[in-house]
């Protein structure tokens, strides 16, 4: 009971004190407001970037393993990867037959060529030669027309499926179906348009909207002779995301077999997964976040020092009051809590204003830069951080007040 009343009294006096010094309180909260805005915006921006990243890869199935000559993210000297023997179509077919019934294997090849329709030209378009199995690998489906069919691949049909941006650039509002486009030197008939997938996070990364898909057999015929050697990438889809690990081991085992590696030799091919990419991204984000939070902590620190300063003033100008309170029975802890509440309040107030301000700024960012929203977790963090700053910054002044000798305090002029 006594302690509870102490707390209520501390609370009440803290509010009174802040009300009595509105201008001072407002100026003090400013430092905290800025700090909290920095915290919230840093976290919100990090979340926004992560969402954008995820979204740009949403078309890539998370249960798909990519087997390539080179890894997506090179941790080693580029030439070590470059000297590896490429994966050819024969190896692709071998892996496919080995994994028959256990996983779907889809080979694909890529080249950049100019795409031309009448007078419209799009330069350096990503041309992908693949098979009808591509449909299993991602969630993307044609918006109009159809995707490749087995017979397109078998009979080396000169047909293509275009991405939504390609359609816009080459055809505008005209119907692209059954029109002939020139990809490099070869003409292809448009049989389908893929639905929009959303942009890529990386400027030069895979962008499914800016891609043209043709049968792999036609690809080899049209562009294969140029370098002599083909370097096929393989997409392997596991039956479920739980079986991914097992499929990955299987793929590694079979590929080592197919490429006749001795047990002592390292893999001369790379296993790429969306997870690896996400991990790398997260590591990168971690660093960005760390730097952001460091800058943020500095601004919070400055704000906290401001609060501490004001609390010293507050304690000093109420020295006699402290003496009186002690004379009528306040314990050290009562005085300590009174001032801790006061500084916690100032900071909480700053925190709440900071949150409102960040919400407004987030709305602006959302409208202009990238998708961003303030999450509940971020709000909780902001509140906890502002309270912590209040308690930490208020502690030394409050402790000094609590330790005052009542006789000296009562005599203070």
């Amino acid at each position, binding site marked *: *009971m*006594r*302690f*509870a*009343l*102490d707390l*209520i*009294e501390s609370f009440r*006096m803290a509010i*009174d*004190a802040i009300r*009595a010094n509105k201008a001072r309180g407002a100026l003090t909260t400013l430092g905290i407001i800025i700090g909290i805005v920095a915290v919230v915006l840093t976290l919100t921006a990090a979340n926004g970037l992560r969402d954008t990243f995820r979204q740009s890869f949403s078309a890539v199935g998370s249960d798909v393993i990519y087997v390539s000559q080179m890894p997506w993210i090179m941790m080693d000297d580029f030439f070590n990867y470059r000297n590896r023997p490429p994966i050819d179509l024969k190896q692709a077919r071998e892996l496919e037959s080995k994994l028959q019934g256990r996983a779907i294997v889809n080979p694909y090849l890529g080249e950049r060529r100019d795409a031309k329709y009448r007078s419209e030209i799009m330069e350096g378009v990503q041309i992908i030669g693949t098979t009808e199995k591509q449909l299993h690998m991602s969630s993307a489906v044609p918006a109009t027309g159809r995707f490749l069919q087995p017979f397109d691949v078998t009979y080396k049909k000169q047909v293509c499926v275009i991405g939504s941006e390609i359609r816009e650039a080459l055809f505008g509002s005209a119907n692209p179906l059954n029109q002939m486009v020139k990809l490099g030197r070869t003409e292809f008939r448009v049989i389908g348009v893929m639905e929009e997938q959303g942009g890529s996070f990386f400027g030069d990364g895979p962008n499914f909207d800016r891609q043209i898909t043709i049968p792999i057999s036609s690809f080899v015929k049209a562009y294969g002779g140029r370098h002599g050697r083909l370097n096929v990438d393989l997409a392997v889809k596991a039956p479920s995301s739980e079986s991914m690990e097992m499929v990955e081991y299987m793929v590694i085992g079979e590929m080592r077999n197919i490429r006749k590696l001795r047990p002592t030799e390292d893999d001369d091919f790379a296993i790429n997964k969306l997870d690896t990419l996400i991990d790398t991204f997260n590591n990168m984000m971690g660093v960005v976040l760390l730097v952001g939070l460091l800058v943020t902590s500095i601004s919070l620190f400055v704000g906290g020092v401001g609060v501490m300063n004001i609390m010293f003033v507050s304690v000093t100008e109420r020295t*006699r*009051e402290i*003496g*009186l*309170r*002690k*004379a*009528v*029975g*306040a*314990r*050290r802890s*009562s005085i300590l809590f009174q001032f801790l509440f006061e500084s916690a309040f100032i900071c909480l107030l700053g925190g709440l204003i900071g949150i409102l301000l960040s919400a407004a700024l987030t709305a602006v960012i959302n409208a202009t830069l990238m998708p961003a929203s303030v999450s509940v977790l971020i709000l909780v963090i902001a509140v906890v951080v502002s309270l912590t700053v209040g308690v930490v910054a208020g502690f030394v002044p409050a402790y000094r007040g609590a330790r005052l000798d*009542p*006789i000296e305090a*009562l005599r203070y002029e």
Partner: protein
Amino acid sequence: MAVIPEIKETTLSLNAIDKTYDMGVEQVHALRGVSLDICRNEYIAIMGASGSGKSTLMNIIGCLDSPSAGAYYLEGENVAAMSENQLSEIRNRQIGFVFQTFNLIARASIFHNVELPMIYGGIPRGERRRYAEEAITRVGLNDRIKHKPNELSGGQRQRVAIARALVFNPSIILADEPTGNLDSRTGGEIMGILDELHAAGQTIILVTHEEEIAQHASRVIRLKDGEVESDLRVDDTDACIAPSESLHLVGGATS
């Protein structure tokens, strides 16, 4: 500490109190072997020139300070050996302070100023309201209960301070120059209130340097150089069996 029931109960008893301040090189003896017994419902004035040790004695009696040596029994408990939190509790329950400068909390209402000791004493809201209103009525300020101290005159502020001092029904009201900041007429009013409280059974200790104020008390203790110079009983109605030393002094003064 011999208590003789049929006469009066001893409220506080100081036994050979020493207080020494360490001022770096030299030690200042503020009090030297002060012994006093004060009984319930006594009305005492402590007098002395500045530097006589009367402030120090008041601080020790008020449990704001601890003696360097000696024993101090307040309501039978040895206060000299208490921790700081225990002392807060004693101040809260047993002592009502009235200061020369009133020491009201400027931001708080009269009511809140008066209920403050009970808040620290853990008294529930309803009782606090009742006791505070009672105390404020006793000092004649029941129409000012919601006012702030700066809306009151000096005399009224001191009355609020008295209400605050008596609200918890303390063993002692300790008034340090209660009229020091007031003109003589308001000072007289304040002394009137203290006299009434004494008449109603309250033990009061006044610290003053004004003879006129000390006249209100029934026993006057004079300090000089940290020692009790004289301990005179003006009238014997409140007297209890006191230590032989003070009896001797009383006898010496009346002869």
